[in-house]
């Protein structure tokens, strides 16, 4: 059985690889599920996060053939933001894809 979480994690890492090419060495995003995307320890600025989210949506569309909106009402109203870390983002995308019936 394909490990969906692993596949989603790889999608995000691919996006990070692309983003890192444009970033200075000390600004690069670490490819780990623990990497913070929001808050004080986040490496990305707000625009960087916007770029990441848009690129991940696109890559998910490519890989899973489904159009998802990550920053939807549901994401914003979650008690724990899905954008806290790469790990929480993976969880959130897994949930969205399950809801869409794609995994």
């Amino acid at each position, binding site marked *: 059985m394909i490990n969906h979480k692993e596949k989603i994690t790889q999608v995000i890492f691919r996006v990070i690889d692309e983003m890192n090419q444009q970033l200075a060495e000390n600004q690069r995003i670490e490819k780990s599920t623990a990497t913070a995307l929001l808050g004080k320890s986040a490496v990305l600025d707000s*625009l960087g996060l916007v*770029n990441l989210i*848009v690129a991940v949506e*696109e890559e998910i*569309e490519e890989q899973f053939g489904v*159009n998802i909106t990550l920053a939807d009402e549901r994401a914003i109203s979650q008690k724990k933001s899905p954008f806290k870390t790469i790990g929480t983002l993976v969880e959130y995308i897994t949930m969205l894809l399950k809801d869409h019936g794609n995994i």
Partner: protein
Amino acid sequence: MEISELQVMVITGTRKGIGKYLAHYYAAKGFNVFGCSRSPIDYELENYRHFCLDIIDETAVKKMFLEIRKTYNRLDVLINNAGIAAMNHALLTPLETVQRIMNTNVSGAFLFCREAAKLMKKNLFGRIVNFTSIATPLKLEGEAVYAASKAAVITLTQILARELAEFGITVNALGPTPIQTDLIRAVPPEKIAALISRQVIHRFGEFRDISHIIDFFIQPESDFVTGQVIFMGGI
């Protein structure tokens, strides 16, 4: 304006009127034009592809942009032309009409700006042209809702100009005067005459006035022009 390389453009509301004119005008100039309208069109055009959709149908709109991304993986220009109007005294305006106008003119324009910008930012280049109206600065009686929706388009334009500047995307708006299209078909002639008399230059707007302003906004040299609104006829 010369098109130096393959450029991709989206125009909304191309079934008739200004949108139809712009589709013909820019396809003839060599742009690869993607157009849309709710009902099918009665023309065929080289360099032109049509999508039948409602501009507030998020799924359909995203599908259209996915198609553009898969075909060209770029977008250079968005002309947010689609819009609806309804003239009536405020006391006789149903809430449903208010919601319909706001939805199409504001939400629809926003949705296209958002999806277009996602594609434009790939090349760090983009030109968005929104449509407002002289009904807004002239505060036309009987057009409270329409004018309010077009005021929202101005604010949207000015703020998106700031948010998207970082991606090399400019966002401007143009406010046409009355042009002889379906949009004003139901407006009494004396109302139109009174309106034209309030313009600095007293004549109907023409299609070429619109394409001239859009040409200016979208040319590569206009990369320092953003968040601006040009009203035709000198309002």
